[in-house]
Structure formats: C-alpha cells, structure tokens
C-alpha cells in the first residue's frame, strides 16, 4: 500500500481522486454504489448566488467516445445548498468541494463568501469556464484580464483553498493559468468541456437546445492531457487534471503529466463505482512498480 495522500493548497486529500462538478450531483446520488469516504474528495454541482433553471431540453447528445451537454448551470442557489444539502454532507470523512459560478465578479465573491462560512467545506472550485451560459461563465475564462478580475474579487471574500477551473477554449491556456496564479489562486483544475456541436441531419437542427454544448468523455483526453502538461510547467501551484479519465491508467497519465490530483467526470455515468476503482487501480500500479508514494509519479513524465 503506497502513500496516496496529496495536498492542494491547505487541503489534504487521502488520495488524488476527486469527481468533476456536474457529473456527481451532490455525491449522495452515488452513495448506493460507493463509500464516498474512500474518495480524495468530490466536487458538487455548479452553484450560483441565485437559483438558475438552466437551458431548455434537449441538453445532451451522445458523440463518438463522449457526449455533449448544455445543461447551463441548473441549480437551486447557494442558500439552498447551505441549508438543505450541506447538513447531509457535513459528517463525511472526505473533502467536499463546491463548484462556484456567477455572472459578475461580485456574484462569484458573494457566493464564495457564503460557502466560506461552512466549516465542512475546505475548498471551492471557481468555474470561469462553463461554455453553456450567456453571461459570465466562460466569458471570464477566455481572457487573462477576465480570469484575473474574478479571482481577485473571490480571493478577497474567500479564505480557504481556491481552485480555479480553466477553459480549454482559449489560444493559450498557460497564460490564463499564470494570470489566476498571480491573483492568488491556490490551484488550477483543467480542462472544462470543449465547445462542440452535433446536428440531426433529418431535422437540419442542432441536437442541443442552444446550438452548442460542452464535449466530455474519453474523446477529449488527449487534449486535456496536453493542456495539463503545458500548465503544470507554467505555474508553481498544484494542477488538478481532468478530461476523459475512464480508468486508473488514464489517471496515472494525468499524474505523470504533472497533475497533483485528478477529477473523474463523465465516466461516472458509465460506471457509478468508477471512482473507487480508480483509487484502487492507482494503488495497485504503484505497488506493482515499487513506488512507495504517489508523488514519485507526479510530473514524472520523461522527455
């Protein structure tokens, strides 16, 4: 049994496996299939200051090796999370993170401040990369100035570990990573979904209600891995890697590319117990290769 524990900012994780926001509900949806306490952490669905209904149906289209979604941050707002959901998660022996989104820097900061007050939430993941909302979301994440403005506002209101989730829909993701690091982010996570489309040729219409959606699943993994590698070289803060991880081998690839921890997203829809299988698989690989600590493989890519 190798040591699997890692640190992201002030947060310590028993292993590097977390879940990606929007693919794991509030965690409780998966409690019949896994022991949530076996995870390094999980990130609950995107939360905004005020409730959001999200986009119209249809919100999903299957693609080769993945799926598109345009959910659009449907959620019942931060107060609902604090009052109704948080009490159900408080006793868990794992890190529960909240993914925070908004339309203005002030929105983000106010939402983050309310979560700052919850002692059982050690970190937030700031979503400046949602491709499916009109205002805010990815609009902030595609320029260094926009990303920096949100992180600056949130950093003043939020005092625990701050992870910033980056969009891959940019010309140079390393520049954005450096911009948020400069404003005091403790970590960056990447990648959010890649913007894509799917067309029903008989109807000559998009399969998604808003025309475009975010692509996820194993089809995006090579792109995600390359971006994690680039960003890990560009910043001094820990990187959380995600994008198409389906098994322990994929997870180890991200760790070797420089990720300190990883998130599992779309794979939860294929196998609701995949997260704990990946934890076990990483451990078995480390044992089989004589590694005593997961840090021996983080950033171990040889070039």
């Amino acid at each position, binding site marked *: 049994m190798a040591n699997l524990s890692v640190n992201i900012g002030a947060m310590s994780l028993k292993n590097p496996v977390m879940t990606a926001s929007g693919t794991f509900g509030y965690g409780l*949806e998966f409690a019949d*299939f896994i022991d949530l306490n076996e995870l390094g952490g999980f990130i609950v669905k995107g939360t905004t200051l005020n409730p959001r209904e999200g986009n119209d149906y249809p*919100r*999903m289209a*299957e693609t080769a090796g993945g799926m598109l979604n345009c959910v659009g941050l449907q959620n019942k707002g931060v107060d609902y999370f604090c009052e109704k959901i948080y009490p159900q998660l408080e006793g868990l022996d794992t890190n529960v993170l909240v993914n925070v989104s908004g339309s203005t820097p002030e929105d983000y900061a106010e939402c983050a401040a309310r979560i700052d007050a919850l002692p059982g939430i050690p970190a937030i993941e700031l979503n400046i990369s949602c491709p499916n909302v009109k205002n805010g979301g990815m609009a902030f994440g595609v320029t260094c100035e926009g990303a920096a403005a949100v992180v600056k506002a949130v950093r003043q209101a939020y005092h625990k570990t701050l992870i910033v989730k980056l969009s891959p829909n940019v010309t140079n993701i390393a520049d954005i990573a450096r911009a948020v690091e400069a404003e005091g982010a403790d970590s960056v996570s990447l990648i959010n979904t890649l913007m894509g489309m799917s067309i029903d040729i008989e109807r000559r219409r998009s399969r998604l209600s808003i025309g475009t959606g975010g692509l996820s699943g194993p089809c995006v993994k090579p792109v995600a891995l390359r971006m994690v590698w680039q960003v890990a070289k560009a910043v001094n803060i820990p990187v959380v890697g995600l994008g198409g991880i389906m098994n322990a081998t994929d997870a180890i690839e991200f760790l070797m590319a420089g990720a300190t921890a990883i998130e599992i997203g779309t794979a939860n829809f294929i*196998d609701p117990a995949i997260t704990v299988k990946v934890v076990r698989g990483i451990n078995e690989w480390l044992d089989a290769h004589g590694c005593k600590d997961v840090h021996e493989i983080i950033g171990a890519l040889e070039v």
Partner: protein
Amino acid sequence: MNMKKYALDLIVAAVETPREGYVLLRLTHDETLPEMLPGQFVEVQVRGSETTFLRRPISINYVDRVNNELWLLVHVVGEGTRAMASLKAGDTLNCVFPLGNGFTVPAGTGKKVLLVGGGVGTAPLLYHGETLRAAGHCPVFLLGGRTEADLMQLEHFRRYGEVLLTTEDGSVGTKGFVTHHPVWEEQQFDLVATCGPKPMMVAVARMAKAKGTECEVSLENLMACGLGACLCCVEKTHEGNVCVCKDGPVFNINQLTWQI
C-alpha cells in the same frame, strides 16, 4: 421513494424475438434480484462501440420472481439496441437499477385502472398490470399499434386483465388510435396510466381529463446518468425543470406543463 440501487452484471437467460424489430431480453442473476417497482427502469451498458458510449435506459417489462428474471422489451432502433439484440444466452449485461419512480398503485382494492400503451410503450404496463392485479385492483389494457405486428405479449397481458386493441390499419382490434376505442365511452376508470409516443400520451391525457380521471404518463427523455446527477433529461414542470430519471419517469399529468 428512495430504493437502493445496484450496478450488477446480469446474465442473459434467454433472448426472444416476439416480433421482427423487437427483442425480449430475459436476464437473471446468481442472487435474488432486488426489489423493483412497475414503471422503474434500467440503465443498460452497451459495450463494443465508441458510438454507444452512454448507457441505454430501458423500462422494466416484467419481473418473474419464480424464475428470478428481469425482462426488458427492446425496440431495435439504433446501434445500441442492435447490440442488445445480438446478445446470446449466457452473455452478461451490466445494469444499473432500479431507477426512477414508478406508477401509482392505488390504496385499497377493486380500483379500475386503464393502462394505455403504444408500440414498445406497452412494455412497462405488463409488470404494472401484474402488480395492480396482485394488489386486488382491476387493470384493463388498451394497447395500440400501427399494425397487428406492433402488438406483443398479449397472452401475458390477458393473465392480469381484459385486453383491448387498436391498430391504425385495422388489422386487429378497433381501427384508429387508442383514443378512438369505445371503452372510453363504455367504462369509468379510477386512474389512467399511459406509456408510448408523446402525441399519444397527450391525446390520452386529454381524454382522461375530459372524463375527470387522474392520469399518469411515463416519459423517455434523452438521458445520460440515470441517477439525477447530470441534469440532462429535464422536463418542465410547474415546479421548474426536474429530472425524468430521478423525479420521473412517471409523472401525474398535473405536474407537467403539457397543453392538454
């Protein structure tokens, strides 16, 4: 209703072809199959193709407790369902189930329930009919298809109640749609439950409303997770967007914003 969910490798006991273009998968397990309610569904993993990446939601057709079997009646329409149709006895099929909320089984006994199915939408009504009958109610099945070849499992339905048929071409039963059947004028029901194409369910819901009868509909919106996590399969209700997979697939028509 919060029933424990399972992810199990079920074993294919038999594959039947009740009609061309349809397949009945009879699945079993080494241990006793978990509790399931009529109207709930299964997320089936289809392996072997990158274009069938997500699981396929399939309604529970029947639970044979004597032989420990779960039946799935599948309309073969695409690559995923074709892969299911090519399964052989002895193969395994990974299933996440039971999912969602089922049809209402009324309190008391002796209630008359009209179960209206169209095409493969008849599938969940078999298990629902059995459950209603076992609870002491009187199910009546009104099953519709384009033609006689769309109507299946009639011998099974007849075990639990009267079976009435309609076909668009008149090849069997009353000619026309399910809403054209004289039973709507001849009998009074305490509850209507329907599953099938949306235009059919809208018409059935209108008919039930005109008669002052409560009506439940079973939806099949495109979905990914089946667990209420991804929020892809939403339906508009008077309380906002809700997940068909978790808050449905069965809804009372009064919850929905359909124009009936």
